[in-house]
């Protein structure tokens, strides 16, 4: 018998009798006199809160047009409009990758009409309440109340009117998401928002214009392309081999970010003649010659000589910094030293050897490619230091910092849990010192001290300084998270790998890190949220990130429209945008936590 368990026989627990609204109220609000008093107080607070928030948002003196007019500034700051297609391309790429990944990893389960109904009912009731309490005109009130009542009614029907069917998990979550995307598209094509205009006398007045009038075409296209690529992958995923497809997608994700930022958004002017005469031969030469040497160094019969090759390569790489040469050569030498040190332990034999050599060749080519891209002059002409500002800069700061801090944090965590006392002390000192002092101090250090500590002729732009400070800051926190995962690995895992003859580095790469990282994924997502929120601190050192535009640029605007002193509206808008990002991530973290069973003992 091969474990086919017959589940149909299992009897469902008898359903409790449906409860009336009075029973519900009694159980949940008025179970004791004290609870009743608390309920009434809390209800008053809630009503006052709703009334206050709506009163604030729909107050006729609110100047929301300051936000709508400056939307582009908030998103990308001064990125030239004629090159905006590059931004749309980047957003579209991310959307397509996201859609493909959702399909390939089969994300998204099903939900029941009961749950959808519950959500609709809550939203509808809130709208209804808002209509009753909000400072609207009579038509406005009626509109809110009608929409709220319809939503609440539909929700109530889905929840309670379908009987047993309401509990079946029949609605795909992604389908619901698609409906929401569709609704958003409808909204940006129909609803109008306040916008500043000049009347015939040249006075600044507020008129109503469609939302996103200049960007709704690209948004629609992106949404449709995303949905389409999901559908295509949904049918194709059964034809494709699962594991290689996932690997290709992961590779695309990893590559997409530097390519989008360095190549697509920067649009560098590449010196083609120099590429042909110098960079390409350099890359190919390193790839080929390096592969030949690595092939020798990985040979088992070589014994200790293999390690000698690695040591020599390391010395050469370090020595290269003492001589005059292009940085790309130094980087290549460093990468080669790294690979040749790894060759005796990770070189393998047969297919594994070929993969190892191919990884080296690809790394060499990528190093040269990204070096050329990063050092070529950008053709995007932006007044100011960095091409992107606003939300774009916030995203670039946080993604770069979190990605760059990952390897450092990993090394620090390994050092802190190492058996070697000096490594442990160095790592502990670093981690505790960095965590003990607030981030703003490190940002100030990076902006005030770093410029004078660098050798002459080397200067680092403001954005890079902020990224550097945030990277080293985040690495310390990341290290503590990873340490938690490392400590959770049973001692037997180390012993088994040692008994099999693995070296420390093999044990770390094959056994320890995969298990440790899996255990700390939710904590890492938490770290991403923290870094995303912390990027807002760069506004203090004068970078034009999302918060800085909302809090300093817009309220300081007097031309072409006057928004002087308009602080609260842009800040509230920014808060909502930040919230949407972090809330999404925290939900993802919760889901992962449940899925991986972390936190359950």
């Amino acid at each position, binding site marked *: 018998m091969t474990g086919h368990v017959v589940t149909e026989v299992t009897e469902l627990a008898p359903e409790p009798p449906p409860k009336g609204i009075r029973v519900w109220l009694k159980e949940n609000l008025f179970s004791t006199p004290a609870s009743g008093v608390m309920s009434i107080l809390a209800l008053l607070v809630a009503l006052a809160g709703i009334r206050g928030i709506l009163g604030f948002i729909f107050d006729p003196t609110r100047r929301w047009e300051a936000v709508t007019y400056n939307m582009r500034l908030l998103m990308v700051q001064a990125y030239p409009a004629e090159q905006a297609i590059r931004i749309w391309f980047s957003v579209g790429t991310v959307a397509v990758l996201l859609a493909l990944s959702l399909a390939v990893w089969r994300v998204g389960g099903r939900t029941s009409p009961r749950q959808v109904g519950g959500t609709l009912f809550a939203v509808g009731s809130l709208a209804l309440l808002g209509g009753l309490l909000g400072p609207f005109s009579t038509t406005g009130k009626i509109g809110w109340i009608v929409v709220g009542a319809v939503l609440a009614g539909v929700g109530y029907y889905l929840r309670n009117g379908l009987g047993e069917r309401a509990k079946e998990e029949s609605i795909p979550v992604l389908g619901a998401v698609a409906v929401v995307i569709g609704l958003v598209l409808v909204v940006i094509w129909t609803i109008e928002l306040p916008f500043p205009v000049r009347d015939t006398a040249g006075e600044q007045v507020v008129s109503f214009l469609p939302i996103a009038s200049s960007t709704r075409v690209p948004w629609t296209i992106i949404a449709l392309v995303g949905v389409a690529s999901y559908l295509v992958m949904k049918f194709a995923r059964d034809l494709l081999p699962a594991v290689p497809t996932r690997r290709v997608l992961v590779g695309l994700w990893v590559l997409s970010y530097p390519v989008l930022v360095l190549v697509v958004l920067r649009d560098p002017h590449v010196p083609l003649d120099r590429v042909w005469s110098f960079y390409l031969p350099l890359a190919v030469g390193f790839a080929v010659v390096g592969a030949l040497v690595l092939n020798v160094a990985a040979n088992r019969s070589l014994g200790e000589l293999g390690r000698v090759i690695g040591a020599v390569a390391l010395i050469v790489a370090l020595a290269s910094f003492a001589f005059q040469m292009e940085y790309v050569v130094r980087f290549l030498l460093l990468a080669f030293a790294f690979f040749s040190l790894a060759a005796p332990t990770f070189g393998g034999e047969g297919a594994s050897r070929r993969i190892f050599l191919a990884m080296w060749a690809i790394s060499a080519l990528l190093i040269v490619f990204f070096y050329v891209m990063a050092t070529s002059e950008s053709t995007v002409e932006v007044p100011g230091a960095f091409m992107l500002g606003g939300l774009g800069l916030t995203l670039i700061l946080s993604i770069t910092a979190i990605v760059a801090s990952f390897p450092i944090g990993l090394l620090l965590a390994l050092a802190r849990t190492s058996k070697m006392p000096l490594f442990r002390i160095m790592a502990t000192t670093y981690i505790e010192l960095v965590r*003990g*002092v607030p981030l703003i101090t490190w940002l100030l250090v990076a902006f005030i001290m770093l410029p004078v*500590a660098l050798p002459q002729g080397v200067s680092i732009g403001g954005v890079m300084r902020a990224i550097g400070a945030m990277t080293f800051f985040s690495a310390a926190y990341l290290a503590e998270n990873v340490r938690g995962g490392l400590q959770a690995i049973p001692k037997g895992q180390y012993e088994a790998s040692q008994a099999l003859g693995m070296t420390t580095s093999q044990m770390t790469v094959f056994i320890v890190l995969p298990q440790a990282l899996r255990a700390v994924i939710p904590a890492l997502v938490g770290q991403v949220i923290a870094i995303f929120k912390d990027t807002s601190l760069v506004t203090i050192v004068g970078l034009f990130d999302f918060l800085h535009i909302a809090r300093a640029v817009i309220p300081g605007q007097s031309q072409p429209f006057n928004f002087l002193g308009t602080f609260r509206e842009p800040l509230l808008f920014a808060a909502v945008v930040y919230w949407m990002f972090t809330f999404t991530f925290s939900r993802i973290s919760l889901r992962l936590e449940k899925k991986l069973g972390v936190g359950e003992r």
Partner: protein
Amino acid sequence: MTVEVREHQKTPLWRNATFLKWVAQIGVLIALLALFALLGREALKNFNQSGISFGWKWLSDPTGVDIREGIDTSPDSGVRALAVGMVNTLRVGISGIVAATVLGTLIGIGRLSKNWIVNKLSTIYIESIRNVPLLLQIFFWQAMALVLPQLTTDDVGTYWFKASNKGFGLAWFRTDGGFWPWMLFVVAGIVVGRYVSRYRHRIQEETGRITYPGLSWFATVIVFAAVGWFAWPILRILAPVWHGIASFFRALPPIVYPIVGAIASIGFAVLWIRNFFESRRTPAGFGKLTDDDWFRVIFAGFSGIALAIVSFVIGGFVLTTVGGDKATVAELIGRGIANVFDWFGRSFEVTSGSPIVGSRPEVIVKGAGFVNFSEGGVVMSVPFFAIWTGVTLYTASFIAEIVRGGILAVPKGQTEAAMALGLRRSQYLRLVILPQAFRIILPPMGNQYLNLMKNTSLGIAVAFPEIVQVGTTILNQTGQSLPVVLVWMGFFVTLSLGISAIVNYYNRKMMIVER
């Protein structure tokens, strides 16, 4: 045929595991130090070219720094300006910690409440506050306060509470003559109350009669405070004692302080090493010490000696005082201690007044058409309000989650066991659930307190004069970036060490209770 056991084979150095480990560690250490040395040399070279040489003279030099609020708004020296900043940081930090703990605990419990609407409101609070950057929230509170009505001549008068765009005034208490003698009564009440409560506790254990030991402690303190309220002038007789202690410290040769420091650090190291060896002792003699053990011993001894040397170096450091004369740090420590006792003695000589008096905010006309709060009550400036509200609300959302998690983490079996023993709900909460939840809550709570303290540094964004803001101002005026950064680091590292020491202390106490 057998293989003979020969003499130990000699291991070549390049294959010796122990040797290689130490080579790797020392190699990386040297590489890092070299990197720092290179950067440092470059920095010094660049600074020398720009004509700035790092030093600590700015600490005693007069500054032109004006500070908007704090214990001294126009400090006469760098060190005094920094002190004002530190006190401001601690003011926001400590009051924020208290408020955030209360609010966070309430919301955390609300999140567990069976009451539907309380539960939902708590959830909404947590999810909305903690998902928005703190800096944005601080800016928001600042913006909200700045649109409050301006103070005009119509507002002149005394209030219980007054909100305006110059800040919030509210009625508060203020210490008066007799405060310190009265405090001595209160402290005595706490000490005596401890004995009273212990005594009554013993009675309860012996006879089974309920004696309310906690309540009796509280009552003792109240009695002492009440008596002290009227009796404090008697303590005038203690004033000469304080002055005597002060003159003792003044007469002590300054070299005593570094010597005490050196003896303490070397003694501590010796004690540690002795305990360590003791812990490794067996009936058969000492066990084998591993590399790691030896390293610890050497490191402990080395740190002891280094700290001793450091205490002499710092003690001999000459500073220029505000008065203009030069004095070593050791001398200044002696003077400082003596001054504290003198000041104490003087405050015991006062005979008029009442220990604590109420005080209300007052709006007055300050110069031509310029209306503002006067000294009365407590006035919360707009920057203080923004930073305080921001960090308090923000931290409360994290504390709420910690409290909720801590209570949920107490196993259900504990509740059932307590119920089975017949404890009442209030009893089992107090005696069973809370002590266990507290132990789980404490370490992350300490972390949040630390975060709150560090987050007060965002005051720089709303021009609240805390340590980082004051430091930045000094730095801009003097160019002394490295020393100022070192001061920041010293301040925050001390703070975090202090908070973690307190948390560790309580943690250990809890652990002992557990066993």
